[in-house]
């Protein structure tokens, strides 16, 4: 039905009635009546014209729609008249609905939406069981990769990427100052397996996968670095002074970092030449695409029989079986977001509670309004309005309110999601693709309608159930509100307080967990150290023992000179080099054993490996017992090693490990120092075994320069860059990255959840206190006369105040009691998300009780003060 057709038909009906009247009048005139009299009589005979029109229109079946527009117009008019109420209601709704939209868009992006790949439900992540996001143990060798591709029956194909790329690992040269960029190397079939096609150009060919020297740019990098130049495809760019051909540009929807390494950006992707890393051990992360019809369980059972047949390296025939029990495919989606599911659901629950509190608050506000509008309703009923119509009117009003709230909430949410999507530093997957899309809009409409109906229901029922007579009596100000009314409102406030309890306890526990995490002794001092990527052009030649010592000696001289130059920069306290920083990339090897002790065949305990220069431990602030590496530790001197406490104590329980001989890769190494455990892979977990090897002796690549300084990185950077450029003019302009940012990045998911739940708890508290205030304040207004009489009869101000406050606190305490019980249940449910905090943490519970009681007291005190200032004479006169 169309509105314009409705108006046409209305006109038609009016004409029909008019023609009836004209004919009747004409007949009467023909019978000899005067025209005026005839017209009057005809109209009298016809009856109530609007009513006839109304009843007739009802036969069209359109009246529903007509009434809706009527109700809508009326609702807008009433709400417009009561601006204060409308503003408060819409604001409260906007906050509640807005928070829900934001969280839903996060949940939708991370949990619900399929990954942005072709048939993502068939993609699996192949890694050891429970390896989580620790790279050290979730990667495989090239030989294993090739065997898996050949021998499996479950997958259409298996692809891989090199898991140990560092940020800014290449530099774009050839355009003035070198610019650092981040490159990820992937197997040649990577895009084919994921189902990604190039936005421009093409993906890698099989030939290119063998030879390398080609690259694909990510959409963002293409835009920012090459200004979106479409002719870039086929051109050559210089990476690390080598010519590399750009074969394509990736689509905007493909964000490697968002899926595989949350919170980091990737600029380009090149094919991994497998032979380059064949000797490097476990370097590849696996992704498989299941054949249609193959279930995950089938793939899992195949993995248990297939993986033991793979070699760590075919050069070492005894390395067959290195991957026994070392592979369990899981859905890629579960790998990406599985660990976050619980946190997100908790977050979702928290905003759901906010929405409930909002509903309760709005119910209360509307109930109060309904009470003052009883006369209006009584009038409408006596004029013939049905109760159903009034209920519909009230629901229309509440839907208009929730609709307006949803619109404003949508605007808030849009801003918030935009902000979140551009926070590159939050280590949550897919964050950059968070937005308000169609599904989110649908969700918004749904909650707006549900919320509108929910909070419109209480006043609606009130009106439909109410007795007109009683309503009229109830509405006379000055007496206590009707008992039913009062009880309903009290129940609402009590439930509001209980909900706030649960929110505050949840937020308190998460916040305390977060504080505990911040308090964790990381084993190093992030506050004072920063790191920067450096280059050095003195490669180590591992071919022969001689070439090794010679090239290492050259490089040691270079490194030593560099560290001296850096140390002399104003403000630098100490400096050192490392290949890996804690909490960033990690790498695991078979750990050391005790010399002279026999181990069962095939025994190996994994340990994280760090190659460091002399001075590094001091620069990053690790606490060392024993001696640091020295420049005199070279390939020709005694082999040395530094262990962390966990490894040292496991190898030499109840003994000082320093001075003992360990065995690593069949070579003796003297333990010269033990450091306090460093959180190398994550902050909340067990540090595991760590070993530190001297760059000066081993010859690994330590390209991360760490400096300790009391200056800020910004103050420090120019001096450092200057010194580095003096040594090597080709040093790209890389950022001096504070270690604190690395720690913050590692903490960001927890911070994200703690802060959001904290905000929601604050919102819940605010709304609950508004609710208490509203109810008490309203009942004071209605009891003005009663209080006036009591005061006239001798009640003191204190007595009146006491009465109001004790009433408030009584409500709050019931809410607290209910809420505390509910909080215990909720706290237990989220216990796995807590860190160093008991679900029944007394401080949190006590804090919540004090906070809520305090807020309830204030919310009651303000109206109580007003009550005690009532002038009995004015109060009695005012009616």
């Amino acid at each position: 039905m169309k509105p314009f057709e409705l108006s046409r038909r209305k006109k038609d009906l009016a004409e029909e009635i008019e023609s009836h009247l004209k004919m009747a009048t004409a007949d009467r005139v023909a019978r000899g009546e005067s025209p005026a009299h005839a017209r009057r009589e005809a109209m009298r005979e016809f009856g109530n014209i609007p009513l006839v029109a109304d009843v007739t229109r009802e036969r069209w079946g359109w009246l529903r729609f007509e009434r809706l527009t009527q109700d809508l117009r009326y609702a807008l008019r009433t709400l417009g008249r009561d601006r204060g109420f409308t503003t408060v209601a819409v604001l409260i709704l906007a906050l509640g609905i807005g928070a829900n939209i934001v969280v839903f868009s996060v949940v939708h992006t991370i949990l619900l939406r399929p990954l942005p790949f072709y048939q993502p439900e068939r993609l699996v992540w192949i890694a050891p069981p429970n390896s989580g996001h620790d790279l050290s143990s979730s990667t495989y060798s090239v030989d294993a990769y090739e065997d898996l591709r050949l021998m499996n029956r479950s997958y259409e194909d298996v692809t891989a990427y090199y898991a140990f790329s560092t940020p800014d690992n290449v530099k774009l040269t050839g355009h003035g100052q070198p610019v650092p960029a981040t490159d990820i190397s992937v197997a040649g079939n990577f895009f084919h397996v994921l189902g990604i096609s190039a936005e421009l150009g093409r993906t890698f060919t099989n030939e290119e996968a063998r030879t390398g020297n080609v690259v694909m740019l990510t959409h963002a990098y293409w835009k920012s670095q090459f200004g979106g130049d479409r002719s870039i495809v086929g051109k050559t760019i210089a990476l690390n002074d080598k010519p590399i051909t750009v074969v394509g540009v990736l689509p905007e929807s493909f964000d490697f970092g968002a899926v595989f390494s949350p919170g980091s950006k990737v600029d380009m992707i090149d094919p991994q030449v497998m032979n380059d890393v064949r000797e490097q051990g476990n370097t590849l992360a696996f992704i498989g695409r299941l054949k249609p019809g193959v279930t995950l369980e089938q793939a899992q059972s195949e993995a248990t029989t297939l993986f033991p047949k793979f070699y760590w390296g075919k050069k070492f025939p005894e390395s067959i079986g290195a991957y026994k029990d070392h592979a369990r495919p899981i859905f890629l989606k579960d790998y990406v977001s599985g660990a976050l599911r619980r946190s997100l659901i908790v977050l979702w629950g928290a905003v759901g509670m906010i929405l409930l509190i909002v509903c309760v608050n709005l119910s209360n506000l509307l109930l109060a309004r309904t009470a003052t509008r009883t006369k209006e309703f009584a009038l409408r009923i006596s004029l013939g309005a049905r109760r159903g119509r009034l209920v519909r009117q009230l629901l229309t009003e509440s839907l208009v309110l929730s609709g307006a709230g949803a619109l404003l909430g949508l605007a808030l949410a849009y801003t918030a999601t935009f902000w979140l999507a551009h926070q590159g530093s939050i280590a949550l997957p897919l964050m950059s693709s968070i937005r308000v899309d169609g599904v989110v809009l649908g969700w918004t409409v749904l909650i707006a309608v549900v919320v509108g109906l929910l909070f419109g229901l209480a006043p609606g029922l009130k009106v439909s159930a109410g007795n007109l007579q009683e309503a009229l009596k109830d509405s006379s100000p000055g007496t206590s509100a009707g008992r039913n009314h009062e009880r309903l409102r009290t129940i609402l406030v009590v439930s509001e307080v209980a909900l706030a309890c649960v929110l505050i306890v949840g937020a308190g526990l998460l916040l305390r967990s977060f504080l505990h995490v911040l308090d964790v002794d990381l084993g190093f001092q992030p506050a004072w150290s920063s790191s920067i990527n450096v280059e050095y052009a003195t490669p180590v030649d591992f071919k022969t023992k001689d070439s090794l010592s010679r090239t290492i000696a050259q490089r040691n001289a270079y490194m030593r000179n560099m560290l001296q130059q850096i140390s002399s920069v104003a403000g630098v306290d100490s400096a050192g080099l490392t290949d890996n920083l804690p909490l960033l990339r990690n790498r695991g090897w078979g750990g050391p054993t005790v010399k002279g002790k026999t181990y069962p065949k095939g025994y190996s305990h994994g340990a994280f490996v760090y190659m460091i220069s002399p001075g590094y431990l001091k620069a990053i602030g690790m606490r060392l017992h024993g001696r640091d590496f020295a420049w005199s530790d070279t390939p020709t001197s005694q082999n040395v090693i530094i262990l962390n406490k966990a490894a040292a104590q496991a190898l030499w329980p109840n003994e000082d490990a320093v001075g003992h001989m360990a065995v690593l890769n069949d070579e003796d190494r003297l333990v010269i120092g033990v450091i306090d455990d460093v959180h190398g892979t994550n902050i909340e977990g067990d540090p595991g075994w760590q070993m530190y090897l001297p760059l000066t002796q081993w010859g690994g690549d330590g390209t991360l320069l760490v400096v300790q300084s009391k200056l800020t990185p910004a103050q420090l950077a120019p001096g450092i860059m200057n010194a580095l450029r003096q040594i090597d003019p080709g040093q790209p302009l890389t950022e001096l990255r504070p270690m604190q940012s690395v720690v913050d990045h590692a903490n960001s998911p927890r911070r994200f959840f703690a802060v959001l739940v904290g905000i929601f708890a604050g919102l819940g508290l605010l709304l609950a206190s508004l609710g208490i205030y509203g109810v008490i304040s309203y009942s004071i207004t209605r009891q003005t006369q009663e209080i006036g009489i009591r005061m006239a009869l001798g009640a003191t101000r204190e007595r009146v105040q006491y009465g109001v406050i004790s009433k408030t606190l009584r409500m709050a305490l019931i809410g607290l009691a209910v809420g505390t019980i509910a909080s215990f249940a909720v706290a237990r449910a989220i216990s796995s998300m807590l860190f160093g905090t008991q679900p029944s943490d007394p401080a949190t519970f006590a804090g919540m009780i004090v906070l809520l009681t305090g807020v309830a007291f204030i919310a009651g005190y303000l109206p109580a003060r007003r009550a005690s200032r009532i002038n009995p004479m004015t109060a009695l006169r005012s009616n």
Partner: protein
Amino acid sequence: MAKKSGYENRIELMQGTLDMLILKTLQWGEQHGYGISQAIRATSSEVLQVETGSLYPALHRLERQGWVKAEWKKSDSNQRAKFYKITALGKQQLASDYERWGRMVATIEAIMTATGSNAGSEV
């Protein structure tokens, strides 16, 4: 839903009969609302007065059900009016209405003329 107002109840009561009367009137030829009410009044010797509040809703309902068709035309007295015309469907409806009416009258008649003792034993 709240109960219907008394006004509408009267319409509901008359519905079946009124429909039949309107359709019957239209069988003689197309007619406008005023004409229908006048015709019913005249043929019933002024006994039946059709209220406009019942007539127009009924006409619009009959139109919606496809039993009558409406058209704007000039009347004999040169007055523009909406003329209703019975459709084939309407004629069928009239026949079945009339038949039902006849049965109802016969049934009511039977009850009204039954002997008291007989009725007593039946109930």
